[in-house]
């Protein structure tokens, strides 16, 4: 298993209680807003702490309430694409993408340069622009490039396409799928759009008020 999480967390109106695992491909977490989707991603990333449970990434326990383990965010090797992209407004596209580049000798799998990643996401021509000088779809690509630059073992995407128009959205859906196949790391994607979940998810988990409602196991394994 590349990724396993069984966690509980008390939230203001309900308790989040999920048990999810993923070996490859894309796991889509779908549900209405306020169902606890983002909380799950933030717990996995280390931005929030679950009240109970265990999270394993790539055979490494990054959180365990039983053993008191809680590895800091920066050592979890997770890529995180925020819902509002969270691009650094005072840095150019290139500086944004380079921000998380691992330092030499810190066990990189691939030899990545900014140009590789910018080219892969077709944003090379934007490298000297600032985030408020590019479109929503372009911002999304920059956010993806920035997350991939860290050479993560798991990529978390929080409503990555919800703010985009329909055309950009379908283009990026296809590219996300291609990217996952190419990159060969599991993605966890949060969306409120069931269609999108069905299109992208190799595995789909429905969430409502913190509970797993239904699980659709995918039949097509790439």
């Amino acid at each position, binding site marked *: 298993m590349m990724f396993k999480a069984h966690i509980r967390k008390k939230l203001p109106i309900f308790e989040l209680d999920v048990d999810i695992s993923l070996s490859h491909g894309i796991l889509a977490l779908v549900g209405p807003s306020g169902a606890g989707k983002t909380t799950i991603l933030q717990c996995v990333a*280390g*931005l929030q702490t679950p009240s109970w449970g265990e999270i394993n990434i790539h055979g490494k326990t990054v959180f365990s309430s039983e053993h008191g383990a809680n590895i800091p965010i920066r050592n979890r090797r997770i890529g*995180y694409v*925020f819902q509002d992209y*969270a691009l650094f*407004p005072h840095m150019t596209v290139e500086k944004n993408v380079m921000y*998380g580049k691992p330092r030499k000798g810190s066990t990189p799998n691939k030899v990545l340069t900014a140009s590789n990643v910018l080219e892969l996401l077709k944003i090379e021509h934007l490298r000297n622009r*600032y*985030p*408020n000088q590019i479109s929503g779809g372009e911002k999304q690509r920059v956010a993806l490039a920035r997350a991939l630059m860290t050479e993560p073992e798991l990529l978390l995407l929080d409503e990555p396409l919800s703010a985009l128009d329909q055309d950009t959205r379908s283009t990026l859906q296809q590219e996300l799928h291609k990217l996952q196949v190419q990159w060969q790391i599991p993605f966890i994607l949060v969306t409120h759009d069931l269609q999108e979940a069905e299109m992208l998810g190799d595995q789909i988990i429905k969430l409502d008020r913190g509970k797993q409602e239904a699980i659709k196991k995918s039949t097509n394994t790439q």
Partner: protein
Amino acid sequence: MEFSFIPIILSLKVALAAVIIVACSSIPIAGLMAKREFLGKDVVESVITLPLVLPPSVVGFMLLVVFGKNGPLGKLLEQWFHTRIVFTLAGAVIAAAVVSFPLMYQSVKAAIESVDQNLEKAARTLGARELRVFFTITLPLAWNGIVAGLVLAFARSLGEFGATLMIAGNIPGKTQTMPLAIYFANESGDTGQASILVVIMTVFSFLAIYGLNRWGKRPKRDSRGDSA
């Protein structure tokens, strides 16, 4: 009596030194206060802001108690370094720093708090340690507030009167800054010297406030979203 530039030079020296002290101390303190929760935080915050509302004579009196010949810090400085704070320019710097600290602190803290926390979270997911997050994300994005705080602190230091008079005294050529020179020139009937200094102070203060307002209104390239 001839016009003397010495009070202007002394004032600039005092204000510059005070602003350096205030900047070095307020930025880390504001950073901690904006990001950390701890027991008694409200009390600490109130103490920090107190000089803003206390009469300068009260601040001056307290500084005398602390730095005076028999004060705890005054005694230490005398014994270890054979230096005195009372009736020296250092005293004027301390007085200016204490009264201008809250202005800088509040400005910096508000600016740090207004930085989008998602950006700081994003930096952490990209592998940044807390110090790197602070210096590469929080501080640059809080820059406007920091500059505003620096200007306000400088202007306040330049204009400090009451506390300065109590701890540094009014020694012409040594601790007599512009506000003191104005007061004592006027007292002794030298309205010429007083008027010139008044004009200089007023013009400077006007420019500081005007510049700040303009700075605050300028279009920002580095703002978030599409609202450039």
